[in-house]
């Protein structure tokens, strides 16, 4: 495995274009967390033409629902949740300026098209590597919608967050290519 590519958020179009499905990356910078309920709200606001409570431009959305933090710790275990549940919302979030998402599992055809159209990238974090991932999160602050509890939007500051490019902006899809390569009759 070649050395991982180090990238910093917010992502520029140039960086996004340089990433290819199968690339192993370490992400440093900030990212925003959102799951089903927060996505529903964001998309409703965008539909009404309202401004979101944080600047999406160039940012990544992490699909996560961590375990509780122990005293003195920034966060508990924090691996990715299933991305497919956000299929309905992701294209609009990309259109609004986000450069991609981090989750796990295949996303739909509409997301593939949106990644190409708005130059975005879909990263997978390793599901069940939640303790390892937690070690890369150095700060965790509430951004919006505290009333959503575990589903509120939070900002994580990360250093060398491990991820793999599963869908790039050129139409590359590791979930398709990888399986094809290793399938045997």
């Amino acid at each position: 495995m070649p050395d991982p590519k180090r990238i910093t958020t917010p992502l520029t179009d140039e960086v996004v274009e340089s990433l290819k499905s199968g690339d192993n990356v370490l992400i440093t910078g900030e990212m925003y967390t959102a799951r089903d309920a927060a996505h529903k709200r964001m998309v409703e606001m965008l539909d009404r033409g309202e401004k979101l409570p944080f600047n999406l431009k160039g940012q990544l959305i992490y699909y996560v629902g961590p375990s509780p933090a122990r005293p003195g710790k920034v966060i508990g275990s924090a691996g990715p949740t299933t991305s497919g549940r956000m299929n309905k919302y992701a294209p609009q979030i990309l259109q609004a300026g986000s450069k991609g998402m981090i989750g796990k599992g295949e996303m739909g055809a509409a997301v593939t098209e949106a990644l190409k159209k708005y130059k975005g990238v879909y990263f997978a974090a390793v599901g069940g590597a939640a303790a390892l991932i937690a070690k890369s999160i150095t700060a965790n602050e509430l951004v919006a919608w505290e009333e959503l509890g575990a589903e509120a939007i939070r900002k994580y500051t990360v250093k060398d967050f491990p991820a793999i490019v599963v869908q790039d902006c050129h139409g590359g899809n590791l979930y398709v290519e990888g399986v094809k390569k290793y399938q045997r009759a």
Partner: protein
Amino acid sequence: MREVFVKNIISTVKDLCIEANYQLGEAEEKSLKEGYQKEESPTSKETLKQILDNVQIAREGVFPLCQDTGFAVVFVDIGDQVFVKDGNLFEAINEGVRQGYKEGYLRKSILGDPIERKNTGDNTPAIIHMNVVKGDKIKIIVAPKGGGSENMSEVKMMKPSDGVEGVKEFVIDMVKRSGSNPCPPIVVGVGIGGTFEKCAEMAKRALLRSIGSRHPNKFYADLETELLEKINKLGIGPQGFGGRVTALDVHVETFPCHIASFPASVNIQCHAARHKEAII
């Protein structure tokens, strides 16, 4: 009759909830290491390395193996010579889960009502499967089950004429359709026979067996080996990134069935194959 105090049951269940979520079993870790050696895809090898590193970090007892610390599924074999003193067995198990998930800093993932979807706040109720056995002991197994892999499970009421080939097709198809969703490498629990609900429970119980163990009946042991080989030819690989190691093992459990029926079930377990047991 032997008296067992509920306070012992509570503390045992509490400890098992915490242990299961932080300490992966030896057989499970060994199997992941073997998978790492076997894996040919560089991306998937890196993935397995992260999973193995994660096992070590969790072992320190600060961060659980996965943020999804699961539905607490509890299997109880209670001896017919046991008298539970000072309270009720089911209440004691739920109290143990409540304490374990609080003190272990485990995520509370249970909603009181499936439509209303409001969290119960303490990860109760547990799912409790109870058996009465001979003797004066209580055996308790706690198996926290995550949502991602549980969602990739099914019971199928097949036709008797479908035979064992039908079961194979069903299991392979289920794994294929699940793809990356249940967090491979997976363990596949298969139930064959019984009634609708018995069949589902067998697939879940099959997941309690240690990775690498085989069914005592040679026919079913061979079926397990064959299914494992076929699944690992699908190419899904760790996390669905493509590779050789899609499943760590397949376990089959069977039960007598009705002349008109042929139920089969599949319950998928992610690579964090968590289960811990204790005997009181």
